[in-house]
């Protein structure tokens, strides 16, 4: 079956994935507690950063590190370098201490970042104080190119065929409107040279968040058709693909003779043909994309 209607793709690059597999007692992590009684709570209260978070003692910092490792390390990496959740180096610079506190308290709706019920306010601030010490790695954050020239490189190379910035561009690949917020310049640089080596996660279902996104997949049907596309969704019984021309395919696996995937490959071309200067400029342009203007 071919479905021609296009559906907007989620943006793996900015989605914060959830680790459904949680360690410890095997239950899950930091989930929102149901309000035991009464209606949902009102709007979040104004956050006031305590003095202790601005000038934490060595002990409070150590505590924050410990808390982070136990409570956040599963998704964000024990060293905060990212796992299924993003790298948090420099997050307090990006969001502000109170912004990070608010994320810990309230989560980020629509993403895997659930409110952290395990930490009281004091301990949440200790985590913020610890995160504040994790400056972005200088080399990672270094932007050497010229974003204005980079836009020209972006346009000249047809990136907009597959990617959107704001409301401009195609929807086959992930939107890039906020890519500079979600990815470091170093990541963008490496990704442009070898897209298949740095696949984003697939956020189409929270349960599948740690799966490879945009996975190149070939199927052979029992009726003799052969189709190649990216995996849009898959469960035990079914598989959805989108081919390069934007057609959606819905398969029952019982109707397929063979399924092959190519992890490490990507439909996105590798931009090794760009000059070093053009690549730096393109990275600078992408790094400058931080949301709707």
């Amino acid at each position, binding site marked *: 079956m071919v479905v021609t209607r296009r559906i907007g793709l989620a943006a793996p690059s900015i989605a914060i994935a959830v680790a459904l*597999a*949680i360690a410890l007692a095997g239950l899950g992590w930091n989930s929102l507690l*149901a309000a035991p009684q009464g209606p949902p709570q009102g709007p979040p209260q104004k956050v006031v950063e305590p003095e202790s978070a601005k000038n934490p003692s060595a002990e409070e910092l150590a505590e924050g590190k410990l808390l982070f490792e136990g409570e956040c390390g599963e998704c964000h990496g*024990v060293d905060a370098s990212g796992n299924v959740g993003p790298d948090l180096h420099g997050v307090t610079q990006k969001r502000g201490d109170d912004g990070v506190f608010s994320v810990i308290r309230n989560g980020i709706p629509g993403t895997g970042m659930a409110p952290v019920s395990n930490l009281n306010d004091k*301990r949440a601030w200790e985590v913020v104080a610890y995160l504040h010490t994790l400056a972005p790695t200088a080399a990672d954050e270094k932007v050497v190119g010229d974003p204005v020239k980079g836009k020209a490189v972006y346009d000249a190379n047809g990136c907009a065929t597959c990617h959107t910035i704001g409301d401009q561009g195609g929807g086959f690949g992930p939107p890039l409107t906020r890519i500079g917020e979600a990815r470091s310049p170093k990541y963008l640089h490496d990704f442009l040279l070898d897209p298949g080596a740095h696949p984003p996660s697939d956020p189409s279902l929270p*349960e599948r968040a740690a799966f490879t996104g945009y996975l190149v997949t070939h199927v052979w049907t029992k009726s003799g058709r052969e189709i190649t596309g990216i995996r849009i969704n898959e469960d035990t*019984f079914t598989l959805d693909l989108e081919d390069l021309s934007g057609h959606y395919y819905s398969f029952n696996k019982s109707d397929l003779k063979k399924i092959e995937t190519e992890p490490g490959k990507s439909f996105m071309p590798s931009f090794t043909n760009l000059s070093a200067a053009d690549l730096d400029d393109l990275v600078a342009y992408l790094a400058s994309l931080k949301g709707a203007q």
Partner: protein
Amino acid sequence: MRIARHFAAALALLMPAAVVAQVSYEQIVHSDKEPQNWLTYGGNYAAQRFSGLKQVTPQNANTLRMAWVYQMRGGGQLESTPIVVDGIMYATEPPSNVTALDARTGKTLWHYNPVIPRDLVAIGLFPTNRGVAVLNDKVYLATIDARLIALDAKSGVVRWISRVADNKDDGYAITQAPLAINGKIIVGVGGGEAGAHGFLSAYDANDGKLLWRLLTVPQSPTDPGADTWANGSWSNGGGTTWNTGSYDPETNTIYWGTGNPAPDWNGDGRMGDNLFSCSLIAVDADTGKMKWYFQFTPHETHDWDSSEPPVLINATIDGKPRKLVVLANRNAFYYVLDRTTGQFITGVPFAKQTWAKGLDAKGRPIKYPPAKIEPSVEGTLVYPSLTGAINWTSPCYSPLTGLFYVNTRESGAWYIKGEPKMAPGNSVGVVGGGGGGGKFMAGDQTYTAIRALEATTGKRVWQFKMVGDSWTGTLVTAGGVVFSGDAGGDFFALDAKTGAPVWHVQVGAALRSNPMTYSVDGKQYVVDSAGSALFAFALP
């Protein structure tokens, strides 16, 4: 008695709230005689999750269709195995709420929502609830803040409340269904990552008085097992009892699994076997005395709790009838033990594992050298993963096929060693002090599978592979069907003999509970939860 119950069932259809559910201990002992009901968390005292219902078969399962859906009221993750008594279902919702439903229609009869403190401590666990116990005219609920509450089965009003342990300062929490036996309610505790010390308790079913308490990890230098924790490191805690066990009425013995020692991923400060963590304990139900223990993973450092349901089976081995307890362990080995003595009979891996060369004649693991398996600063890749080859979800056993059906998790993880900081007696001060953690493998490198094992040997007979990380248990019926679900939202039925899929339905969220079945008015229903809803299916 039977007439009375049938009358009650008939009444339930007309005026459900007027029916008093009466479930005697004898009834639970002989639950196989009333397959229309599901009387304990594990389906029966043996935790077999086997139902005698035969209406749904591999031949007709493809006509199963939705009977009703119950949408829960609050947020959070539904992981409950409902109890059904004569047409009334008792299900739980996060964090610790109970709902009584008309099991024929899914309509609510009553709700009970205990007030849970805002400053709840829930460390290393998800604030959900997995089910209630029933006995006589009461429903028993263990709450996330570590209380045990008896409710009137008819109305949901509170009969008594007992505090099992402290939540606020000590970090104890309970998600499990209690186990109701003759006049007693047995309940364990969770909170091992908070430094909680494991124990198992029995309460008087009538008034909630504590009858006995058995420590699974020492709380003083003279407690049993203290010499297996170097330098008094038992003070860090662990060995919690967070999943529901099983019970043998013939010998009045309780079987219960225990969790990891603390801190988890850094065992440097707690050299020794760390008894009675990661063990199965057999307990005299009258006295609370330990009859025997079997430790699966001595000096555990990978979060492989041994909290999996111990399944009691009777089978013939080498021509002799044996009373066995079998258990698929989070450490990836399947164990067969004599349940009278605790003697090891056999044990084999049921999932990929890279930490032990095998088990010795007594069932003790022969571990690989520490450099290959111990958590490290940079991360050590070991199979199975932190969530284990099985986790909290229940396996099932069919006496008709002799097979043990287990949702198996095939994945490794990079185990990371952290600071082993734990503060004795002040666990909340070290929230998250698990001594490390780990990184999981990406989803495409892992899978889950329903595996059928020969129960007496662990030999694999068939498997059904699933995409994604399924967190659903299994159910097997006399009709010859195994039910389970996957992470992609498919609830499905397999032929119990062959593993061939015979039915599936997409319910829109990952399946998250152990499936169960019951019947009302001669119609068989199959139930599982996904997202925030409970789904019931039946033949047309």
